[in-house]
């Protein structure tokens, strides 16, 4: 069953991973979509929704502008969901503490996504050189195919990142679970709150808006006051 779950996760990783840069960009790569999709395929959409909710805002401030490559939050969200559901079934563990453990293991591995993504883009230089050679030779259809072959490199990057995060998780989560789950027992709900709030803080801190901190504080204060008093 673990293998089937990992393969299903890989399918989601491939489709959503391509949406990040190479194909469509309709945002199925966002954690709030990709994680519930993985969870739904694995039979537990609620876990996916929890993971998506916690990861969505973390790297939202890292814009994919020009040559900038943000950490791969898509694969972190998908792998985090797959680990939570598949390993949870295998180890007989569930609940927010276990989801958080899987996520805390998956999040640092998101940095590998940048490495794989850069590798794909660097390899695409050769694709471009070949396409240019084909254009010089008058073989225009070949140049078209070279462009499409670039998508294959982004596919490999998405699957590579997914494999590293899931591989790392499968090795580390069973080792860390006995040590960390008890520590997470009393703090899980606060960490669940902290992850999206840290993401929001990073967005507020880095967004290019005049008086963003003032606007945020006023909005927070007003909304909180309304909820409290009404």
């Amino acid at each position, binding site marked *: 069953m673990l293998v089937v779950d990992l393969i299903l996760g890989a399918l989601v990783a491939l489709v959503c991973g391509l949406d990040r*840069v190479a*194909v*469509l*960009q309709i945002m199925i790569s*966002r954690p709030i979509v990709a994680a519930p999709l993985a969870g739904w395929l694995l039979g537990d959409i*609620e876990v996916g*929704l929890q993971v*998506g*909710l916690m990861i969505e*805002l*973390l790297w939202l*401030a*890292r*814009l*994919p*502008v020009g*040559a900038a490559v943000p*950490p791969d939050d898509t694969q972190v969200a998908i792998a985090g969901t797959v680990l939570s559901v598949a390993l949870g079934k295998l180890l007989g563990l569930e609940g927010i503490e276990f989801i958080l453990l899987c996520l*805390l293991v998956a*999040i640092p591995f998101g940095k590998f996504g940048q490495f794989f993504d850069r590798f794909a*883009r*660097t390899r*695409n230089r050769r*694709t*471009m050189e070949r*396409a240019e050679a084909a*254009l*010089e030779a*008058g073989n*225009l259809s070949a140049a078209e195919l070279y*462009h*499409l*072959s*670039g*998508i294959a490199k982004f596919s490999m990057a998405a699957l590579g990142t997914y494999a590293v995060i899931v591989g790392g998780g499968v090795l580390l989560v069973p080792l860390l679970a006995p040590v960390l789950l008890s*520590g*997470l027992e009393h*703090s899980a*709900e*606060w960490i669940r*709150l*902290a992850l*999206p*709030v*840290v993401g929001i*803080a*990073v967005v*507020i*801190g880095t*967004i*290019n*808006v005049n008086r963003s901190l003032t*606007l*945020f*504080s006023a*909005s*927070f204060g007003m*909304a*909180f006051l309304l*909820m409290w008093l009404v």
Partner: protein
Amino acid sequence: MMNLSPLIRLRVWLRLFLLQGSWNFERLQGLGFFFALYPALQKLYRDEQLQQVCREHAGYFNTHPFLAPSVAGAVLEMEQRRSRNEEQAVNIQDFKEMVAAPYAAVGDAMFWGGLRPLTAGIAILFAVKGIILAPLIFLLLFNLLPFWFRIFGFIYGYRNGIRSLEFLQQHRLPDWAIRIKETAVVLLGGVSAFLVFQQLQAEQIPKGLGFLAIPLVLILALCARRGISTLLLVLLTTAIIICLSLFGFEPTAWL
């Protein structure tokens, strides 16, 4: 030479969804732009002229993927004119250079910097309430504006050619980008308040303490502004919360 049929234009538009398929650090979207235009160029040119035009379009090109259809539409109209040997005020490559960078800047600010946090914030509100349609709500809300630009930008560009340069000015897109970002900041303030309020309610902690979240978020925001990575902030925050709970810090008991 002929005008481009709607079917050819549709093929070009659909191919623009693969614009970044061979993205690389040297030519960025260049090869993808050639790939998208190729069905139209095949209709407009023959033999060596076709080869020459294809080589031109495979050069450096970079703009925002949601605004690329506007550029492609205008380029198609200009290519039609060139194929008929009509004189044009601006060279096609110069036109691409002229519009690509401003479109990229406005698109990045509007879609990545503003619309994405705004719609993500709304979707998170639904997700917190356990509504499983939250992902679909996000997809619907986010994609409305990009698809409007992808569809009508392409049509507008094709109809107006070089005059589509006025698009940015006419629609005051830079102003819209700023407004969307400001709205996102306000909404994220509301989302944070909601998350904190829910947590305090669940833990039965006095609500007034929720206001303490403002300075905490501001400290984190200033850390992020000073270049401290998100990963480090996440790990530090998590470690602090775990340590506090391990050392028996129970907010309810403490209060």
